[in-house]
Structure formats: C-alpha cells, structure tokens
C-alpha cells in the first residue's frame, strides 16, 4: 500500500477544517448530525416526561410549545434530512462510482460550513427563548402571534437549506459526470440511484421552503403582508408552499434509507437484488410522485374538496413504488445465503417498521378517514415509523455496515446486535401505542390530555426510555472501536461494490488507479442468473 489512509494524513485540526476530501467532510457531518441527534433526543425526553401524567405539571405550557418545536426543527432540519446523504452519501457516492472526489469538493466543504452556520443560528434562537410555532411555522401564528424567536430560527433553517441544495447539486453532477469507465446507469449500485433521486428532491424542493421562510421572516420582521388574513392574505397558501417542500422532505429522508437497505440486503444475502430495474426506477418514481401529494396535509384546512381528491389519489399512488421496493427486498432473500450480522438486523427492522409506517400512510391518504386522525397522535406515530423506524434504522444499519470502511476497525458484534434489538423493541413500545391514542382522538402538541388516555402515554414514555438506552450503546462502542477495535481488511463482509476494493480506511485519492467496471452490481457468483416465477 503506497498511499496513507485519509484519516492519518494530513494531521492537525486545520487539515480537517479546511479539507476538501469528501470522506473527511463525511466525518465532519457525522460528528455534527450526531450532536444534533442527541440534542433533539433531549427535547424528546422532556416531552415524554411531561406526558407521563395527564396534567401539564412537569413543564410550563409555554415551555412545552418550545420543546416540541425544537424537537421537530432540530430532528428534521439538522438531523434527519442531512443524516444519510451527508454522512454515508458523502463518503460513498464517489467511492461507489470509482471517482476520486465529488465534482465540487470546495462546494462540499462550503455546504458543511453553511450547515454549521444555519445550525448555530438556530441554536442561538433556542438559547434566546426558543421558538413555539411547531416545526411547521403555520401562519398567522408564526407571523403575528408567536412570542418565540421565529425570525432567527427561520433564518437558521433558510441557511441550512442551502447546505442541502449544495449537497444535492454536487451529487447530481458527480453521478452524471464522474462515473468510472464501464459504469453505465444500470450498473450503478441502488444506493446511487436512491441518492440521485434524493438529490432531485433537494434541488427542486428546498428553494421553495427557502422562499416561504423568507416570506414569513419578511412578514414578521419587516411588516410586509404576504399571508396575513388581515390584509386579505391566505394562510392556507402558506401551507401549500410549506408542504410543497416538506412533504418531499419525508422522501428526502427515506429514499437514501431505502438505498442503504438495498445494499445491506444484497450483501448479507450474498445475492443480486431481485428486480434491479424496478427498485431503481421506483426511487425515481417516488421522487417525482412525491412532489404531487403535498395537499394531503391539508384535507381539513379548507382546501378545495376537489383538490383534496386529486391529492388523495396521488398519495395512494405513491404507495405503490414503496410497496414494490419492499416486495423486492423480501424476494432478494429467496434462495439467498442470509447472515444475521448487525447491519442485516437493522435492515430487517427497517423493512418491518417502514412497512407499518407506509401502510398507516394509506389511512392518512383516505380523505374521509384523515378527517378524524389528522393532527392526532396517529399522525405522530405514522411519521415516526417512517422517519425513526425508517431513516434512523437505515442510518444505523448503514453506519454499522460501512463502519469498517470508514474507521478501519470493527465493533463488538454482540453489543451491536443487542442494541439493535433494544432499539427495535423500544421503538415499537414508544410509537405503537400512539396509533391507538390517535384514533382515540388525542390531538398532537397537547401539553395536558384527558386522564382516560394515560395508560397508553405511560407505555409510550416507558418505550422512549428503552429507545434512548438503545441509541446510547452504539454511540459508546463505535467510539470505543476507533481506538480498541480490531483492524479490518479491505472487504470484511465479502461484499461487492467498488468501495470494498480499496483499503480500509481508504487512501485520500480513494483508488490508486481508476477502476474499470465490467459487471453488474451485486455480482456474487459467476453463475448464470436463473429466472423464477
């Protein structure tokens, strides 16, 4: 081995803060999003503590409004949206396509600084009184009535949006222009397809929320009237603009997760994916269809019933490509060689939880039923199944799978399996009762609730404490492994994929010589593929 690993050289804090190496930027992001994940979790702990008893006794009502708002803002904008693309995507997109870096390495570093700036401004808002609008910033509450730091938080989220745009732009250009010789579109790993689809959404959706937040800030800070009903403005118009981005944002979180799962399932079944082209195009279909469904957040808002019908129909349609993916992952196991290593446990967890999350999405797409469950804990449970059960399971699964590549060392398998199990159990105990609470009619964002709903709330809080422990364990042993874990070879899992052809951890240039690709992805066996069905 001639070149030193990207972790070892060059040395010094300066070399990290000024790095343009996509792998180091991925590490910078890993550290920052992990910090925000634990900050967001701290807010969640406080929320679940308050909800142990029906009376609003643990924190003030005003504080509670700030807690769930900051939980949402931090988790969504500073953890879930960036998590997989900026950490795993940054690290792996160039390596999987045989490139030396992303197309615009300096923009990549800039995107991290933009993220840090936006996040710092939002943190400053938290310290200076917090914000109490909910992460949805609905007008006219946010523009006229809120007593929180709406302007500061809005600016923070606005700025962070550009970090997302820069990442998406970089991925699109990289995937188009920097693929290794022989690497045609249908030879790309599904992780790349998923990130391409995600980037489309980042690039085309994020600017709309940027403008929307800018208008809210202009209205609140400068007195311009945009959504103000007192001046003839339309608060529902704000919701349209907000959800035009924020619904696709859910797919920004879950598409990269699906990309990770496709890698895990194939690697630990040692088999090519079932229905490659269907899984690949399902990502694109979700990304495009995902832009047509935002109105399902507004069925009871006074949106036209006819527009509601169109949005409902399209929301049902977007379920189909998701179903296709789940079926294909399942079918990939068929006649495979299934190993139960930690990443695969997370993949199983993802498929299970995402299936429940996706299916309950149908409940919310059905117009007449959504009227009852809208803005209740049913919705809260549903999107946590997608975002936490989906995105975080995949993020942890992917982190475990590529950890030997990223760090060059292995983690304790027993602890890892144990914590995966704890997370799965804790998650279900936390969020399944919330479906029941929602159908019983418990509205979300309630500081105090009717006493007859206490049992389910206590179950949920108990689950949350288990879940919290589950998240702390990997944090500890992954950190531990960097120093004490056994060194690993280039390809410890025996997986396919270009990223496993270079040393662990890889050298700064990724590949000594540009690889030439001659076969399809997930080729584990030279045998002729057999046709089933």
């Amino acid at each position: 081995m001639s070149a030193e690993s990207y972790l070892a050289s060059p040395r010094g804090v300066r070399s990290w803060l000024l790095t343009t190496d996509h792998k180091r930027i991925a590490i910078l992001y890993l550290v920052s999003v992990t910090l925000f994940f634990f900050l967001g979790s701290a807010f969640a702990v406080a929320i679940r503590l308050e909800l142990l008893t029906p009376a609003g006794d643990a924190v003030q009502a005003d504080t509670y409004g700030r807690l769930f708002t900051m939980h949402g803002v931090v988790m969504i904008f500073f953890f879930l949206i960036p998590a997989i693309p900026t950490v795993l995507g940054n690290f792996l997109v160039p390596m999987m396509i045989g490139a030396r870096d992303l197309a615009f390495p300096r923009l990549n570093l800039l995107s991290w600084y933009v993220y840090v700036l936006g996040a710092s401004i939002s943190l400053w808002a938290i310290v200076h009184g917090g914000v109490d609008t909910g992460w949805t910033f609905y007008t006219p509450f946010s523009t006229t009535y809120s007593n929180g730091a709406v302007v500061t938080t809005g600016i923070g989220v606005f700025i962070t949006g550009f970090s997302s745009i820069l990442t998406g732009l970089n991925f699109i250009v990289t995937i188009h222009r920097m693929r290794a010789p022989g690497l045609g579109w249908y030879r790309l790993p599904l992780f790349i397809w998923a990130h391409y689809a995600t980037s489309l959404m980042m690039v085309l959706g994020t600017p709309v929320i940027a403008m929307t937040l800018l208008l809210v800030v202009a209205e609140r800070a400068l007195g311009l009237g945009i959504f103000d009903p007192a001046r003839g403005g339309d608060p529902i118009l704000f919701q349209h603009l907000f959800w035009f981005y924020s619904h696709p944002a859910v797919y920004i979180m879950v598409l990269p997760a699906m990309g990770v799962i496709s890698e895990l399932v194939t690697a630990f079944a040692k088999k090519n994916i079932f229905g490659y082209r269907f899984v690949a195009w399902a990502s694109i279909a979700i990304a495009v269809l995902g832009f047509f469904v935002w109105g399902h957040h507004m069925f009871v808002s006074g949106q036209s019933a006819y527009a509601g019908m169109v949005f409902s129909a399209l929301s049902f349609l977007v379920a189909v490509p998701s179903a296709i993916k789940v079926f294909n992952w399942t079918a990939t196991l068929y006649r495979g060689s299934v190993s139960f290593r930690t990443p695969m446990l997370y993949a199983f967890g993802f498929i299970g939880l995402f299936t429940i999350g996706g299916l309950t999405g149908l409940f919310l797409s059905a117009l007449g039923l959504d009227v009852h469950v809208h803005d209740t804990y049913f919705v809260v449970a549903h999107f946590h199944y997608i975002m936490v059960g989906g995105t975080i399971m995949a993020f942890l699964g992917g982190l475990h799978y590529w950890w030997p590549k990223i760090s060059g060392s292995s983690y304790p398998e027993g602890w890892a399996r144990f914590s995966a199990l704890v997370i799965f159990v804790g998650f279900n105990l936390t969020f399944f009762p919330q479906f029941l609470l929602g159908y019983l009619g418990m509205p979300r964002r309630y500081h105090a609730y009717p006493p007859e709903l206490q049992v389910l709330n206590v179950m949920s809080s108990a689950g949350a404490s288990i879940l919290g422990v589950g998240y702390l364990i990997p944090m500890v042993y992954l950190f531990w492994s960097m120093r004490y874990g056994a060194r690993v070879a280039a390809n410890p899992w025996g997986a396919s994929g270009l990223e496993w052809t270079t040393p662990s951890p890889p050298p700064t240039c990724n590949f000594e010589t540009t690889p030439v690709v001659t076969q399809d992805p997930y080729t584990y066996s030279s045998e002729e593929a057999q046709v089933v069905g």
Partner: protein
Amino acid sequence: MRWELDLFPERASTVAGEVDALYLALCLVSGLFAVLIAVLIVVFAIKYRRRSEADLPRPVSGSLGLEITWTVIPLVIALAFFAWGSSLYFTLTEVPRDALEVVVVAKRWMWKFQHLEGRREINELHVPVGRPIRLTMASEDVIHSFFVPAFRIKRDVVPGRTSITWFEATRPGRYRLFCAEYCGARHSGMVGWIVAMAPADWARWLRAEVAGESLAQRGAKIFVQHGCASCHRGGPSQRGPALEGLFGRRVRLEGGGTVLADEQYLRESIESPGARIVAGYSLLMPAYRGLVSQEELLDLIAYLRSLGPAGPGTEAR
C-alpha cells in the same frame, strides 16, 4: 393513574360508524400485508440462512410476472380505498338541508357558540340528538381546528374565511371537544364539551335562559349601525345591490363571470368589497375589514340569510 385502556373512541354520530368501517377495513388489509411480509422474511431468513461462509447462492434475475403482480394488486387496492375515502369525505363535507344552525367563533383560547335563537355559550355546546347541526365557524386570531373524536369530525377554523362543518349526534351524552391545530401556549386548554340531549330536553334547555335577540336580529341592528341600510335598502337612495333573497343565488359579476353568494362571498364583500363587484354596480362601498368583529360578521351573514328565501332566480347547483 386510571387503568383504562380503550381502543376505540365512543361512536356518537351518524358518520362515526362509517369512518370506523373504513378504519377497520384498512386495518385488516394492511394487517394482512404486514403479516405476509413478516412471514416471508422470517421464513426466507431461516430457510436460507447462511450455513457456511463459503455459501454462494445462485443469482436470481427477477421476474417480470411477479413485478407486475405486486404492482397491480396494491394499485387496485389503493384505488379502491381512495374511492371509499373520497365518498366518505363528501358525506362529511356536504351539509344536510334541514340542519340546525350554530355559529362558532374560535379565539385564543376558547370556543364561543351562538344558537340561531340567540342563546350563547362558551366551551360547551348543547345540541339535540337526531338533528343535523351545521356549524358556521370563524376565527378571531390564528388557525384553530374544531375536533370532536366521538363524532369523527374535524375542521380547521381559518382566520379570514368562514369554515363550515356539520354533525348529527345519535346518543345523548357529553363528548369531548378539542382544538386540533396548535394555537399557542394554552392550545391544550382550548377544549370543551358537546352536550347532546334528547330533543325535548334540548328545547327546554334552549328556553331556560331568557334568550336575547336572535342572530338575525342582532345582525339587523349591526346592519343599521354601520349604515349598510342607506345603500342596500330599496328606494331612491339605493346605490348597492338589493340583498333580499341574495343568499344561495348565483350573482353576475362586473367584468364577466358569476359567483355563488355563499358565506365566503358575503364575507369577502363586507370585508373587501372591491374584490368582486356585482354587475351593474361600481365600487362605492368602503372595506369593513377590521371594522366589524368576527362575531358581528357572522351575525350580519345570519341576517342576510334571513332576508327571504332565494327567489325564482336560484340556479340549483
């Protein structure tokens, strides 16, 4: 701590059963799918578990037939539920013709109710069972949402417009009312009760308090106070369109097109009269936005509705 564990809210309106039917059907179908996936994963994972590291399964290329199957079947099921959900939605949205009227004003953090006959209540609404109730709702400040789980209804109350929903209680009882759209610190305190009573009890309740004026009477007073009458009442001084029998009719507009004279249009014409002017008139009327409160506005609309039935010019829609 109360050791109760219900799985269903009470079912106390005409639509509750229909909503529950859709819910249970979806539970059944998604349960089947979830179990199918879970069973397949468990069976495959165990049957094809890795027996040795040297295992090398034969690749499988996929199957067009299977792909089409698991695309088309979910698609058909999804579209069926779409149709079911939509038709239910129209049931929930379209107000029966013989509905009793109640006017609702939401403000941080209370619900104010006014019965057509004049009786007012706060955070508690008494209604008879067996009669559809039409709620005409307005907000004084931010977006609120009128939510009664036992009735399976919910409707946002958006400032700047009139929101309408309806329900018909089927069983006497007290049912929780929530505000479902976050409206500030005491959002979870913006709750109340819907008290459904036997019709005879309700009639007694309605008369128990010496009712003031009816909504329409109050509206008529406001009509005079704000000088509306000087332009909108017949005679030589009439400069605005006549308002008798206006409500529910289609009106021709200056510059082409028509509009249905519903709550929304009347509200707009009072608050911002220039937006859509009736054909044959010019804009003389000042904008009353901010000059009349939401309650006064709803009183005015009630008065306009009371001005005679829609004449023969009504176009059914």
